[in-house]
């Protein structure tokens, strides 16, 4: 009788989620645009490195804290929101020479695989689609923190990612290599439980 009661209690506890974390489910988050930044650094004719960013970014993160490899990331970037703190240059960046924003208003990233490399680090593999061309890219990702944000009082997860892409592989050939081919990416993401 005791055994039967224990089994029933275990079943109820499992079904209600009281037994954790072994059964933790992936959690869906929405990228918080107010605390997310997608920035880039590109060499300018060897003299300096120009820093720019995209001001409109959105996307979803499905984060499985206990099995990070099962997490997924989808990001959509509005190419018209490119901002290098110079209106004329931004106009040029939106032109067919670079992002061709009229024809390709979105740039997307969809993760394909996440490898854990440390306690809080990993390699985020995914497909980056830019100018209608999709290529695999790998970003070094650091999981910063998750929990209830003291500011928003909402469940929040934060990540940082770094990586490099070759723009000419996506057909963005204008000015290369004088204007650097290697584009360093600096990505900071806060995502809020949806």
């Amino acid at each position: 009788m005791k055994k039967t009661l224990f089994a029933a209690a275990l079943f109820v506890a499992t079904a209600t989620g009281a037994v954790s974390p072994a059964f933790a489910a992936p959690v869906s988050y929405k990228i918080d645009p107010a605390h997310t930044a997608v920035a880039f650094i590109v060499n300018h004719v060897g003299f300096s490195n120009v820093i720019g960013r995209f001001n409109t970014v959105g996307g979803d993160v499905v984060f499985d804290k206990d099995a990070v490899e099962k997490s997924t990331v989808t990001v959509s970037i509005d190419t018209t929101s490119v901002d290098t703190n110079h209106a004329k240059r931004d106009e040029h960046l939106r032109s067919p020479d670079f992002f061709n924003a009229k024809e390709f208003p979105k740039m997307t990233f969809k993760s394909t695989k996440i490898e854990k490399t440390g306690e809080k680090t990993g390699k985020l593999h995914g497909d980056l689609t830019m100018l209608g061309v999709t290529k695999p890219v790998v970003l070094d990702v650091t999981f910063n923190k998750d929990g209830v944000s003291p500011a928003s009082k909402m469940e929040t997860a934060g990540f940082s990612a770094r990586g490099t892409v070759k723009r000419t592989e996506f057909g963005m050939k204008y000015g290369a290599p004088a204007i650097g081919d290697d584009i360093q990416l600096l990505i900071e993401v806060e995502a809020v439980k949806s």
Partner: protein
Amino acid sequence: MSELLQDPFVQSSILPLLVGLVLVGVLHLLRRPLAAAGIAAGFLAVFALVVGLPALPPPSSMGKLFWASAAGLLLGIVADTAGVRGRAASALLAVWLAASLLWIALPALDSLAAAVSVVLLLAAAMWVAFGRGSQTQGSERGESPTAPAASLLALALAVGGTALIGSSASIAQMALALAASAGGFLLWNWPVERHGWGLSGQVATGIAVLLAGVLTLFTQAQTAVLLLALPALLAGHLRRFLPQGHGLVGRAASTAAVTVVAVLPALVAIGAAYALTDGEASPY
């Protein structure tokens, strides 16, 4: 050498001029009636060298421009080889130009302003297609190449200059490359006119319209000013009013005068584009 080829000035002037000169020269030796095809061929060669060979099917408007131009060149060569002339040639040119423009414009047709731009571009395309007769029948030889080549030079210069001022350097480079390639053809026909124009030549003028289309629909350049350059298409008519020189020097002066007159509206258009940007030629 490769550093030299990466210089934007070389890419949009000396390189296409030399490529145009060589290709027209090769066609002059191999098949003289097709010499004008060297202009479009030169443009395509420089495009492939500078921008690279676009993917097929092309994902972007510039890729579509390349393949539409290649199709036009093929059409011109086939039509000229088959001896297609007059209304039939004009109709072929009109169909190719309209189809190419719509193919390029389709992703940008999202507003009334874009629709109006496409209508204006189609009107210019029809002028290029059907105004051809008066452009090429102005000389004693029946098909003088100078006036239509000068019109092309002017239109390509206008598109290139406007693009350059409007921060669209790759379109500027390609338009100036087309102008330089036309310059190569003009040099072959100066002081003595050696070649016909044909559909192969007029296809190159169509490419200038396609470049104007990409510039208008996919950039923020002040392309309304390109309307000011359209009178360059009247170079054939104007030639009748210019003094016709006799002898080598006279003919050389007459040909040069037609070219200068054709280029004037292009300079007006470029000047207007410059004025509209508050005189800010170099963006950064």
